């Protein structure tokens, strides 16, 4: 809101008040009518206000105690560092909590100045970027589309770069005319995430080090078939006549219109693919077996066996929402996630610790900040040299 808009809002409020007490002059009356007629939402808002019960209901919930409690939380973040004090007396437990704060503020101070210096001595590694990908055409030609400006990517490659309302870069697959169906592949490297809109309107969030192959057009095809490596979140556009299919190495997911996440990273070579459903329903199949899961469930597939568990949706979707969430996770698994986002190599000095970590770290932090949060738990230490991170017990 600009100052002008703020003044305008104040003016409208004065006019509304004057209207109520019958003090409007003719020109003010006109001014208010103009505003009301400019947008039907304005009329709706005035109706809401005049229909006391809405205002009443809202105001009833505006309790000063809540504002006071909230202010106390803020004060604690600004002044108090009670968590640190507490920490010094609490022995390191088997599960170490990484303190989590919404804005990424953390109370812990680095106890060991030397460790701090290890991070400060070199330029910190920046987090990955949202909006970066490589397009591989059916003929094998590769096109980097990271740096193209919005709107200017060659349309003959069938990708239009646009910005969403909130400034996010969106790759829109324009779709070609009926003809030979060819598969293009959009892939992300380590440190890249991309958001893609397929010609049917399906929205795909591609995590780092992942790729999605899609036909250049869905027209004339009975199913909408794509294949995925790595991890992606799908918001499938509804089209009952044309099921949407995502194939990964060892499974196939078939849906009509829904939201779900597929994690087919093969980090530890166990060949497990996890499909987590947020909304709608999906059919997961592997070999001869198939199973339909409901929202909140996660199907894990390994060697054509399907297991279903209740998922921690927040954890599964954290990558898409801009943070890492670890829920009793081992350092090796955490480092794999970090390496994909920060494009780092990880080496372990001695056997990796068995301790598990719980907490949340925003993914817009530099690597040093993220490591510091982990290190402050006293459960693990790091040394950073160039893009190589050594994990020490």
């Amino acid at each position: 809101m600009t100052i002008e808009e703020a003044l305008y809002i104040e003016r409208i409020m004065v006019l509304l008040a004057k209207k109520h007490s019958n003090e409007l002059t003719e020109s003010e009356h006109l001014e208010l009518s103009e505003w009301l007629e400019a947008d039907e939402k304005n009329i709706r808002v005035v109706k809401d206000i005049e229909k006391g019960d809405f205002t009443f209901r809202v105001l009833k919930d505006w309790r000063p105690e809540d504002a006071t409690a909230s202010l106390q939380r803020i004060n604690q973040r600004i002044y108090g560092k009670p968590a640190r004090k507490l920490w010094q007396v609490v022995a390191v437990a088997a599960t170490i909590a990484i303190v989590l704060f919404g804005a990424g503020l953390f109370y812990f101070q680095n106890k060991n100045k030397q460790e701090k210096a290890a991070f400060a001595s070199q330029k910190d590694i920046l987090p990955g970027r949202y909006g970066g990908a490589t397009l591989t055409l059916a003929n094998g030609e590769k096109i980097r589309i990271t740096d193209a400006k919005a709107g200017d990517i060659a349309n003959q490659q069938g990708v239009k770069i646009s910005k969403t309302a909130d400034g996010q870069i969106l790759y829109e697959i324009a779709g070609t005319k009926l003809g030979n169906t060819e598969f293009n592949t959009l892939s992300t490297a380590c440190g890249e995430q991309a958001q893609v809109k397929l010609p049917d309107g399906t929205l795909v969030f591609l995590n780092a080090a992942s790729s999605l192959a899609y036909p250049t057009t869905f027209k004339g095809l009975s199913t909408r078939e794509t294949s995925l490596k790595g991890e992606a979140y799908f918001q499938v556009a509804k089209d009952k006549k044309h099921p949407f299919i995502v194939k990964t190495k060892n499974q196939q997911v078939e849906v009509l219109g829904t939201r779900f996440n597929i994690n087919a990273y093969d980090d530890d070579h166990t060949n497990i693919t996890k499909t987590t459903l947020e909304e709608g329903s999906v059919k997961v199949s592997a070999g001869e077996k198939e199973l339909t899961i409901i929202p909140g469930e996660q199907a894990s597939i390994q060697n054509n066996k399907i297991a279903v568990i209740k998922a921690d949706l927040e954890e599964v979707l954290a990558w898409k929402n801009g943070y890492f969430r670890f829920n009793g996770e081992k350092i090796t698994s955490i480092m794999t996630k970090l390496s994909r986002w920060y494009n780092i190599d990880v080496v372990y000095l001695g056997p990796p610790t068995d301790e598990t970590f719980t907490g949340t770290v925003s993914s817009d932090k530099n690597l040093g900040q993220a490591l510091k949060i982990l290190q402050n738990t006293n459960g693990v230490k790091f040394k950073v040299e160039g893009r190589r991170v050594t994990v020490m017990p």
Partner: protein
Amino acid sequence: MSSESDPVRTSNPIHLSERSAFELIYHGFYHPLCFYATKFVGAEAEDIIENLFVKLWDKKQIFENHTHLKAFLYRSTRNACLNYLKWNKRQYVSVEEIGENTLVEDNDQLSTIIQAEIMAEIYRAVHQLPSQCSKVIAMSFLESFSNTEIAQELDLSEQTVKNLKVLGLKILKTKLSGRAFSFFLLAFWIS
């Protein structure tokens, strides 16, 4: 309360680094900003507002007057919400969400701010009354308790409750900006 010393209304520069000003502003804007942010991000609103104010405190910003402050707060709230939504594409489900939780479209925001600020006027007016008056007025008009119930709750006689109510309305009428009182009437008596 004089309008000069009230950072929510003053036409003097506002120093957010002053503790008392910061707290008064927080009390004055916490609910309307949460109301506004809820339209974008639902239940995350509270966290977003808290994060925003922690950042503001660190910045030690100075505002020319209350209009400048208000414009800044709503704009920052909106930006913080859009930032939050960046990787959490909630706006795509907006078709399914109806009623009070309808997510705002971009051009919707001015009317939403007007709504938030009108309610804020009432809220600030009522809660800036002397404490007993404020309690009685809030319980009576915002929570529609009867005089008997208020008397029991506050351990006062019914006559005292009546007196406090009259006194509270009198203060609202004379000392506070006419428009807040007008909306107060509008919302609760002339409906």
